[in-house]
């Protein structure tokens, strides 16, 4: 068997043994619908769990920092329920914005809120999954965060 034939049969063997699920392919194709060419990206710069104070058990807190060119987003994630997360966030520098959750699994359920004067916001029940936040600022510009798994 020459090498090209062998590679063809290898591809077929792996395709039969462990095919990529069709829904994974379909999700990849539809990923383009999440594109926001007009929004600035705030990239994930830090992701760590905060150690619990001594004597406290149970809920851990995860701290996410997204850094953009003009705006950073700090988010604290607490797991209040098994399938829902509470997000407490802050825009730095503080500014007024409409906040919307972009959720891969619940694309059509709009979960949104506004920041207060200090640039803070709370989203009390965000289902776990792949999530990105979108901010519409008062000057009509938008910022989106990188996607993260909650």
């Amino acid at each position, binding site marked *: 068997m020459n090498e090209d034939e*062998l590679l063809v049969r290898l591809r077929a063997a*792996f395709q039969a043994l462990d095919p990529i699920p069709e829904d994974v392919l379909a*999700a990849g*194709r539809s990923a383009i619908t999440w594109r926001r060419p007009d929004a600035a990206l705030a990239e994930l710069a830090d992701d760590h769990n905060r150690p619990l104070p001594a004597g406290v058990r149970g809920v851990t807190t995860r701290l996410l920092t997204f850094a953009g060119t003009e705006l950073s987003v700090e988010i604290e994630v607490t797991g209040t329920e098994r399938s829902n997360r509470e997000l407490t966030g802050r825009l730095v520098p503080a500014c007024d914005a409409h906040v919307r959750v972009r959720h891969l699994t619940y694309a059509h359920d709009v979960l949104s809120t506004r920041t207060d004067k200090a640039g803070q916001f709370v989203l009390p029940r965000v289902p776990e999954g792949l999530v990105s936040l979108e901010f519409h600022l008062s000057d009509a510009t938008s910022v989106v965060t990188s*996607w993260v798994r909650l």
Partner: protein
Amino acid sequence: MALEEELHEQLDEATADLVVRARDGDGAAWSRLVDRYSGLLWSIARSFGLNEADGGDVVQMTWLRLIERMDQIAEPGAVGGWLATTARRESLRTAQRSGTRRLPYDVREDAAPPPEQILLARERLGDVAAALQALPRRCQVLLRMLALAPSYAELAAALDIPIGSIGPTRARCLDNLQRRLPR
């Protein structure tokens, strides 16, 4: 230029073309890009021992990362290597999060295909599938990536090994496989 290199160059051009068209909003070009690379991304995730759900997450996260920085891509032709590297990083992160203790190149029980599928593979692909299963895990992974990666640059990124060391490793694994096949 060797024929193989020439083919790779053409493929790179085509990939660059797809990226540029997708950036301009061509959904069909995006789908072709997804169809071309998802198999490689899936096999990277599986090489880290991730189950189907986590593997699917890694592939999806990798595509979303590309969507995020679509406008910042300096070399659209090199996007395959970038995708492979991103999938590795996401796989590692996912494996750590889900407490997968096994290292890449290790097989997890839940990664094993159903028996009837193996049987089918044996019947249809016979010797190659059977020979593959007798190879060291590292060779299985390399051959899988080799069969799926469009170019050496992408293969190097998928395996996280220097491009120069691919030749010998590839030759050794192919030779190992050939020796297990009936003449």
